[in-house]
């Protein structure tokens, strides 16, 4: 029990408790007699009031009072004085109950119910609230009631904002006041109320305001959470196209990529086109995105959001360009121009419209005749051993395709906003450094790391060039390293952030990226492009920077500490994936793979699938447990009883056309499971390095 010490009660205490309990029981029994006979006499109401005083949480008691009020109001008809008197009595009872327990839901609701009738004065309410705030400034019932009363009395947001200012000055550690402040300020900013425009001016003032709290007591979390919200407001600018495949300015051989199209028609010359944005967007279609080519190309395109959920919003969008099969001049390259947001319709999931058009272009080289695409009779098993990969002699044409960095085109007005906001962040960085020079503050360090990352994002966007400041990354990585030591319980959080920044650093420019590019020895497999991005053994706990990786067809992530592959669904060209020796705990964690229709080779050996009774991704994937999923119920039931155990494996693999799969080293991968896989994947040629049939 909250606040009651563990002490065996003495005999006397026990007896007294039983006596008190009997008293309460007897009052309850009397009350129920009145309640079940709909008796609302003065005596009955007094019994009820006594009951609620002893036990303010007795819900049925509050229900009864409402019935009694309705009964008596009907009798009073329109006599305003009687009505007021009846309702005032109710307010007294509530106040008395709240004195016993100011967290009683029933009491607060009853007061609202009474006030909603519109006959009572609201003058006393704010006074009462002040009293309760003094008793406990974090009482959320009181704060909620305050919102109710200010709405009833039409008190303007600016006045309430001042109230939060007063509360904060009284005590910086009032998270409830900071929270309310953020709610009110959001409204004032959104409605562009006089005095709260432009946004940058308000943000600058708020940063100054919160700085007082942070410098006074840096270890109190309340101010820092507010600071994070302000930072988020400063960084959140318009969503942009950040990368694409094919990349801007590249040249693509269409026949190299025919295998990746869904139809696999040998006559068609299809090419996937992938757009990746800074945040999840919706409304990508052939009217908001136009794709034009000199040669004959069907410009009525179907765009698909690449997302594991069905929200219709995604960071990455995919379409297929189909070039006509008329004979072409073999050595000519054809220009493809892509225009995004020429017309309205693209919105972010937060509801902001994209009003900034951007453009990109690339050239395609079409085959001279109708070359048939043939997967080849004897495709070899992919062997991921290190000796099969060499890092020299990367073909020059590969380089253009690796470079998916996009030159962001931002128009003049927006550029100024980016620069202004970058300056605000730069000032905050300076203040944060000042604070940290005086004391070792965990959340201050974390904030500094976030500020540096935000500054990098803003300043590179406004410069329009991916010119990463390598020194900045080094400092951020050091900060996360410090935090892992300073705050051990949250080690894994800092490790995940570290991994993301580390990847950003390593993939920042072409020179660095090439360090991780290897050629796979056998070039008869899949396509001419046997380029592998090798990120094995880097202690990565998380993957990110997917906008930099759209070009990847072969990816080695083995021997890391990866638990989740969120984001991997964007790598639509992926054919071969090695996730062995990681920390994948369930099949549901592999949900993103369902969207990788080109995936042929998968290694998930030596993970932890089957080792955990608790599945942390159960509700993040399509499953019979979630109401809105497209779970293939019929297929599932028909195929047999072992499906109940393997429903998540069924969900992931049934839609894929895998040729090679490794599952050994996972507790789930026994003989029974491997038999199930063979039935599920008839086109599979290798399972755990054994050739099938």
């Amino acid at each position, binding site marked *: *029990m909250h606040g009651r010490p563990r002490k065996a009660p003495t005999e006397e205490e026990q007896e007294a408790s039983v006596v008190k309990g009997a008293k309460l029981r007897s009052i309850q029994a009397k009350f129920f007699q009145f309640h079940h006979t709909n008796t609302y006499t003065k005596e009955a109401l007094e019994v009820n009031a006594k009951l609620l005083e002893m036990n303010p949480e007795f819900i049925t008691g509050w229900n009864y009072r409402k019935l009694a009020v309705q009964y008596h109001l009907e009798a009073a008809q329109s006599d305003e004085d009687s009505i007021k008197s009846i309702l005032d009595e109710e307010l007294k009872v509530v106040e008395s109950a709240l004195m016993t327990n100011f967290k009683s839901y029933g009491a607060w609701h009853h007061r609202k119910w009474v006030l909603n009738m519109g006959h009572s004065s609201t003058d006393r309410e704010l006074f009462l609230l002040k009293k309760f705030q003094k008793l406990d400034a974090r009482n959320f019932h009181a704060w909620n009631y305050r919102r109710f009363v200010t709405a009833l009395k039409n008190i303007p947001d600016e006045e309430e904002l001042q109230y939060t200012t007063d509360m904060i000055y009284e005590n910086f550690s009032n*998270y409830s006041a900071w929270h309310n402040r*953020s709610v009110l300020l959001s409204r004032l900013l959104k409605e562009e109320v006089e005095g709260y425009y432009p946004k940058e001016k308000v943000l600058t003032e708020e940063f100054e305001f919160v700085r007082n709290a942070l410098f006074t007591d840096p270890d109190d979390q309340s101010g820092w959470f507010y600071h*994070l919200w302000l930072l988020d407001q400063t960084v959140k600018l318009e969503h942009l196209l950040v990368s694409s495949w094919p990349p801007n300015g590249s040249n693509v051989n269409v026949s190299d990529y025919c295998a990746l199209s869904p139809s696999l028609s040998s006559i068609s010359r299809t090419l996937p086109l992938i757009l990746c944005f800074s945040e999840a967007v919706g409304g990508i279609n052939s009217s908001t995105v136009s794709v034009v080519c000199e040669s004959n190309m069907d410009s009525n395109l179907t765009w698909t959001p690449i997302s594991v959920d069905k929200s219709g919003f995604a960071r990455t969008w995919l379409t297929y360009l189909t070039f006509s099969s008329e004979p072409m001049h073999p050595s000519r390259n054809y220009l493809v121009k892509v225009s995004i947001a020429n017309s309205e319709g693209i919105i972010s999931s937060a509801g902001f419209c994209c009003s900034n058009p951007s453009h990109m272009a690339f050239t395609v080289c079409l085959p001279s005749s109708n070359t048939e695409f043939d997967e080849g009779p004897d495709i070899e098993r992919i062997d991921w051993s290190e000796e099969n990969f060499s890092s020299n002699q990367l073909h020059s044409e590969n380089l253009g395709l690796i470079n998916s960095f996009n030159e962001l085109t931002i128009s003049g007005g927006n550029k100024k906003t980016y620069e202004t906001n970058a300056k605000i962040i730069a000032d905050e960085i300076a203040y944060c450094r000042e604070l940290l020079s005086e004391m070792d503050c965990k959340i201050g360090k974390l904030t500094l790391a976030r500020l540096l990352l935000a500054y990098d994002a803003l300043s590179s966007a406004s410069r329009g060039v991916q010119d990463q400041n390598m020194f900045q990354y080094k400092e951020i990585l050091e900060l996360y390293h410090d935090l892992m030591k300073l705050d051990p319980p949250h080690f894994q959080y800092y490790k995940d952030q570290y991994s993301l920044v580390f990847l950003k650093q390593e993939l920042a420019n072409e020179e660095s990226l090439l360090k991780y590019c290897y050629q796979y020895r056998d070039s008869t497999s899949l396509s001419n492009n046997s380029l592998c991005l090798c990120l094995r053994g880097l202690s990565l706990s998380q993957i990110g920077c997917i906008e930099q990786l759209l070009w990847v067809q072969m990816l080695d992530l083995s021997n890391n500490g990866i638990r989740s592959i969120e984001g991997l669904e964007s790598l639509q060209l992926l054919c071969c994936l090695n996730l062995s020796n990681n920390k994948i705990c369930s099949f549901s964690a592999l949900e993103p793979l369902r969207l990788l229709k080109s995936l042929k080779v998968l290694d998930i050996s030596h993970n932890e699938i089957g080792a955990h009774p*608790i599945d942390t991704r159960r*509700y993040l994937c399509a499953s019979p*447990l979630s109401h*809105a999923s497209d779970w293939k119920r019929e297929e599932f039931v028909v195929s047999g009883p072992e499906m109940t155990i393997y429903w998540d494996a069924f969900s992931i693999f049934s839609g894929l056309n895998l040729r090679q799969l490794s599952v050994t080293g996972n507790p789930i991968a026994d003989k029974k499971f491997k038999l199930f896989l063979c039935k599920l994947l008839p086109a599979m040629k290798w399972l755990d390095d054994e050739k099938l049939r």
Partner: protein
Amino acid sequence: MGELAVEKHVKFILTIEKEKDSFESVVMEHIRLNGAYWALTTLDILGKLNTVDQDEVVSWMMQCQHESGGFGGNIGHDPHLLYTLSAIQVLALFDKIDALDIDKVSNYIAGLQNNDGSFSGDMWGEIDTRFSCVAILSLALLKRLDKINVEKAVNYIVSCKNLDGGFGCTPGAESHAGQIFCCVAALAVTGSLHHVDKDLLGWWLCERQVKSGGLNGRPEKLPDVCYSWWVLSSLIMIDRVHWIDKEKLIKFILDCQDKENGGISDQPEDAVDVFHTYFGVAGLSLLEYPGLKAIDPAYALPVDVVNRIFFGR
């Protein structure tokens, strides 16, 4: 580290059923149905559900049902969504959901949805996302979610999302771990977790772990074993549980045990009760403490019970 005193806790639970006369017990009579759910689920997780008389429990529970279809907290008490869910959960444990007139109960629940998608707890109109959660979980277990407007229900919950990534009881209300659990569970069960900013909320939640290893419910508050459920299950549903130190939390929960008389309290050395005993044991189950049945983080019922309902026989 300590160990979980399973036998003591089982004994504690079976004894409180009998000790009904102390003041502490009488003052909880109005939520006895919730108490039954906490006690029985704990027993099931500990593998000891067979120590209770199933028929006796079910027969008492059915007497708590009101003519409207909803359940009251005890016999004679007014119906409310909170007790209706507990009744359904207890019947699920016993695999006796068919003892209900399913349409009658689901109509009672569905009738409490408002135009804006929110739910009132009962006919008296208190609105709170706790009730959205309870309604959605109840109807999902009864397989009658189609009786409500799920899209509107989800939209109302999303309108209670705060700028720190958390959720409150009504729009604009402060984030609180209990409300966060309610909203995340409701979104999970309706396949709507894409509305949650998992990184932002995950960080807010993992910051609930304080130096002692316990979890609090909001910033700058004291740790409490019950948050081992609400914070932990929320973290699990959004796959961010690796952001806390699980070993430290296990130790905190075990330190809150009364190893002599059984039961778990909110903090070490405080008085024990069935509420915190349940949350402590359920939390340990989520942390994969050995020897415990796995519990589902959204429905707060053992995984085998949930699988039995959704995968059928």
